[in-house]
């Protein structure tokens, strides 16, 4: 054992900064937040143990919590499928062999790099303003655009569009998946008189299922966690009329606007459990629709 450590000491030395960071910055806060979720804590006074009160309040009395859940679920339910469909559609076009494909891939991926940034959220806000570019464009074809951001009926849609616009990373994964489907299967299907739609649903989708599944789980988690867009566009409050009250925005408000750290911690843990549950459901259903080309299953 001693020799083992001595031989590998350099390795551990290199690992140390990360390990320290991991313990201090990740595990530590995670455990601390679990503890805090059972307390009342306003940062100024020391945390006071209140048992399950935070959770009880959340599930029985907190209307804004319910609103936040409904906004977030709606967002996930619309933006994830929309984004995956769009990403797959673009990947299929690119797969058909466009010249200078590297350039296109970079161009299409760019929004994904930019999309999460504050600057783009601010830009988005400019675009969808009542006097913004989108409405100016609509006006040129004679359509009077609504108050995209101020009207609670539309505000969530601007964020869905923002999410779909960041289709780059699932698109690249789809593209790799499409490239992995043997060409001769498409040729066999062609000889077997399958039209394009039939080929898509009978060949492409089933053979792409593992990739679809992977993207679905990843994008779902990302959508549940999405924050900066809603935060910037709603001015940090979830306005208008709480229509952009994403779960994360609500959590942020509880923690840093109202300094209810204990309650915010409880909210964070509930979100974690929701994400874990949805991921588990996805995995559980996957055995009915995901075909893996391996010896197992």
């Amino acid at each position, binding site marked *: 054992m001693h020799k083992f450590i001595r031989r590998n000491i350099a390795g551990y030395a290199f690992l140390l900064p990360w390990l320290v960071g991991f313990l201090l910055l990740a595990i530590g806060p995670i455990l601390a937040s679990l503890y805090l979720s059972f307390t009342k804590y306003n940062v100024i006074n020391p945390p006071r143990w209140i048992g399950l009160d935070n959770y009880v309040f959340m599930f029985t009395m907190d209307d804004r919590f319910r609103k936040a859940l409904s906004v977030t679920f709606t967002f996930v339910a619309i933006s994830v499928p929309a984004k995956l469909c769009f990403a797959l559609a673009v990947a299929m076009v690119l797969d058909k062999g466009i010249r200078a494909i590297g350039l296109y891939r970079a161009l299409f991926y760019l929004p994904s790099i930019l999309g999460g940034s504050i600057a783009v959220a601010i830009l988005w806000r400019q675009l969808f303003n009542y006097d913004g570019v989108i409405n100016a464009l609509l006006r040129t074809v004679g359509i009077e655009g609504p108050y995209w951001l101020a009207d609670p009926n539309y505000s969530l849609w601007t964020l869905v569009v923002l999410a779909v616009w960041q289709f780059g990373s699932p698109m690249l994964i789809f593209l790799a998946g499409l490239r992995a489907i043997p060409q001769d299967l498409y040729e066999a299907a*062609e*000889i077997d008189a399958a*039209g394009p739609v039939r080929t898509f649903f*009978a060949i492409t989708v089933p053979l792409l299922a593992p990739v679809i599944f992977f993207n679905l789980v990843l994008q779902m988690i990302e959508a549940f966690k999405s924050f900066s867009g809603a935060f910037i566009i709603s001015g940090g409050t979830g306005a208008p009329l709480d229509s952009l009250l994403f779960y994360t925005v609500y959590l942020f408000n509880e923690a840093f606007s109202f300094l209810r750290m204990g309650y915010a911690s409880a909210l964070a843990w509930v979100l974690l459990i929701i994400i874990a549950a949805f991921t588990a459901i996805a995995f559980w259903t996957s055995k009915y629709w995901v075909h893996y080309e391996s010896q197992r299953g």
Partner: protein
Amino acid sequence: MAGVTLSEVRKAYGGLEVIHGVDLEVTPGEFLVLVGPSGCGKSTLLRMIAGLEEITDGTIAIGDRIVNDVPASQRILSMVFQSYALYPHMSVRKNLAFGLTNLRMPRPEIERRVAEAARILQIGELMERKPRQLSGGQKQRVAIGRAIVREPQLFLFDEPLSNLDAELRVQMRVELANLYNRLGTTMIYVTHDQVEAMTMATRIAVLSKGNVEQVGTPYELYNFPRNRFVATFIGSPKMNMIDAVATSGTAAFDDLGALPIAAADGPVSIGVRPEQVAIGGEGELTAEGTVSLVEYLGSEIFVHVRLASGRTLLAKADGKAPHKLGDRLPVAIRRENLHLFDAAGLALPRAA
């Protein structure tokens, strides 16, 4: 059942032409084998007939219909791929039924055809398995099954046996031949294996570098090759080739002696098949040499005889012949067994 007519068919990838104006007439109900060395364009030609590859120039007709602009799905043909191309996520049954469902055939008819194919190919117990649970030979049967359920007017095969081991290959060859005899449908079969070509074909088309060198029955190709390429490509082991120069009606084939030949002055060559190099027999060309290698095949042996000039002649002899390494042997070739080729490699009338 339908014939296929190719006229002046060309194919170019980018600027590079790989099929140079092929004319080929496949008569209804025949088993035509396209054979040639790797890269000569066999697959390309087959895929153009299938409709998987665009035709750069010329016309292809299936039956009376010119199909240049007809998509693969409407050409009413089946194709068996070298890689089998079975749908990995579908059971054997679904693999067989897939094409028929696409044609919106009634259920009972689909079931009848699938069951019939399963019976012919003896894959009844495999129907619920996925392709990955099948051996190579079983996959091959399923691929053929998928082709026959369609009851097409034309079958296309692209090296369907090349992924199988030698024994299975022989077995499947027989099965395919039986299938052909039973269905009587036109088949076009691509292979680079001339034994497969010889044993299965009613006619063979020999391809080289995007050109058809000769079309004929196996007998015609073996006995009357039109040029040097066909002569050496068909037949195993290869035909012996001996170069010479013709001067005023005779040519000297070094150790073997000289012969009067009907060729213009210039380089010529003669070819002779190993079974026609007689050890110790009679012939117009004779020489003596040393055995440099004996290949024993049981019923026959191949004897490599090195002549004084350093040239090696391959002779085929009975398996019981006593020849062994280092023996000195006389060899003889009869004039009527010679193939004569001119400078361009074209066959001249049988040695006059």
